[in-house]
């Protein structure tokens, strides 16, 4: 009896999972947009061969960095590979806007923001994107995404926005 009840529950759970899976695909764009903060999953959300024109809208358009760093993490690279595929399929001009958190000096942060933008640019070019489509511009610490002098804000502000 116990085993049977367990099996029935599991079966119901599977059906619910499939149903919720179906419903989530219909709101995929919302989910991707709301997930602008998270990393990783957006890359797999993505771009399949016949979805290229809408692909960029579904991609996470912001990637994040460690303090005083411009290295791309593995999650960031996965996101950028998806961007590269979309840009190769449907080329368009893209601005890579580099930003830094408020700590340290302003002009150094301008250079750091450019470094981050260039790191994204160079990776996209390595993936086969035409470099003439990409322009890097650094705003340093002038336009924080989140106001405030605390680590959670800093994490959100050390970023490159792909626009």
């Amino acid at each position: 009896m116990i085993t049977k009840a367990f099996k029935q529950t599991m079966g119901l759970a599977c059906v619910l999972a499939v149903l919720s899976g179906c419903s989530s695909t219909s709101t995929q764009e919302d989910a991707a947009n709301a997930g602008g903060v998270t990393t990783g999953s957006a890359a797999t959300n993505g771009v399949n061969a016949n979805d290229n024109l809408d692909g960029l809208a579904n991609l996470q358009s912001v990637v994040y960095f460690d303090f005083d760093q411009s290295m791309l993490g593995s999650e960031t690279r996965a996101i950028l590979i998806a961007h590269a595929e979309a840009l190769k399929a449907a080329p368009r001009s893209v601005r890579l806007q580099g930003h830094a958190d408020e700590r340290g000096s302003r002009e150094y942060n301008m250079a750091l923001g450019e470094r981050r933008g260039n790191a994204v640019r160079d990776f996209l070019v390595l993936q086969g994107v035409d470099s003439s489509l990409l322009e890097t511009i650094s705003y340093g610490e002038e336009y924080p995404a989140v106001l405030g002098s605390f680590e959670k804000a800093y994490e959100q502000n050390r970023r490159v926005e792909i626009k």
Partner: protein
Amino acid sequence: MINRIIILCASLLLSMTVLAELEIQITQGVDNPTSIAVVPFGWQGKGKLPENIANITASDLERSGLFRPIDPDNLLDLPRPGDKVFYRDWSILGAEYILTGNLEVRNNQYFLKYELHDVFAQKKAFSLTVEAGLSELRAIAHFVSDKVYEHITGIKGVFSTKIIYVEAINKDSYKLVVADADGERPSVLVQSKHPMLSPNWSPDGTSVTYVSFETGRPAIFIQNIRTQAREQVTNFRGLNGAPVWSPNGKKLAMVLSKDGNPEIYTLDLKTRMFTRITKHFSIDTEPNWARDGQSIIFTSNRGGKPQIYQVTLASGRVERLTFEGDYNARPRVSPDGKSLIMVHRSERSGTFHIASQDIATGDLRILTETHLDESPTIAPNGAMLLYATRYKGKGILAAVSLDAGVKYRLPSKKGDVREPAWSPFLY
């Protein structure tokens, strides 16, 4: 170039009516400040004056941290210039110096006669007269402060100098503001919808250079303070930043990344020739000239983290100057050439402060106790520096003496105030 938004609105008379946007709060002074009685000045004219010159002078001297003005309510006598001064009475009051003054007006020109008395020596130190128009009464007060400060300390005063800073009202509104060194008489030099940063004075005090995003990208501008005539001097792809005037006023040093990487360049303002100074794949930025103009001190992360380096212009030889702390940036050299002032983070505290390093010995000293300190700028007499910090969630300017004995804040009442630059001596 699309010249979108330059609203120029600066007039001395207009700014006179604007309430002070900065107010001074002294947080720390020296242990034994000189006691001075600033006697209320006589006024031989009609009506009430728009400025209390004696009060402004007393505030100037107090803000230096080196003086303690005696409360005017405690004064037993109110002598004017020329009156006999009974030194013994002032000595009992604890006054070491007495400043008296008398203001007259003739043909709309204001004449202030002022006298300084040395109580200990029991004699008049000097008796002088200064004149100016009605709109310059604050300038008269600062002039008197300079004379008193210099006579007593032997150091030239900076009360008549100016400061320039950026005020960010919100993310779509920025002002470049010129004000007196005490933050009064603010006047807007540039108003923009886009960020501005890194203002820096020409050595003769007539012009400033700064970075503006008004073209959509960072670009370097030069602007005359008086005529407000302005000129865009760079428009390269990538960084156009951190402009600083050479000591002789003939060149700018700056950072450009037009060749793919942030490098230090100089621009000859006469020939308009750019010369690349650094060659390294890391970040090189925030140049500042050595006092002799023969080398440039700059920030670089070529060692993995930002540290201060010096490049000799003739040989191109680069030498690292800072070794203490895991973040040293935005260097400035003191007027005597002996100290390096910079943004410093120690590995231990992890917080950003302004620090001073003795160039000869390498000894480093942290000068500030505030948070997120940046953009230090040194007064032309080398006694004080201004810097940007955060206080109660707002960007403000604060000052500290180079020996860390005197500290004060200039809190903003409107936007975030940042990126201060102290002018050279203006006379």
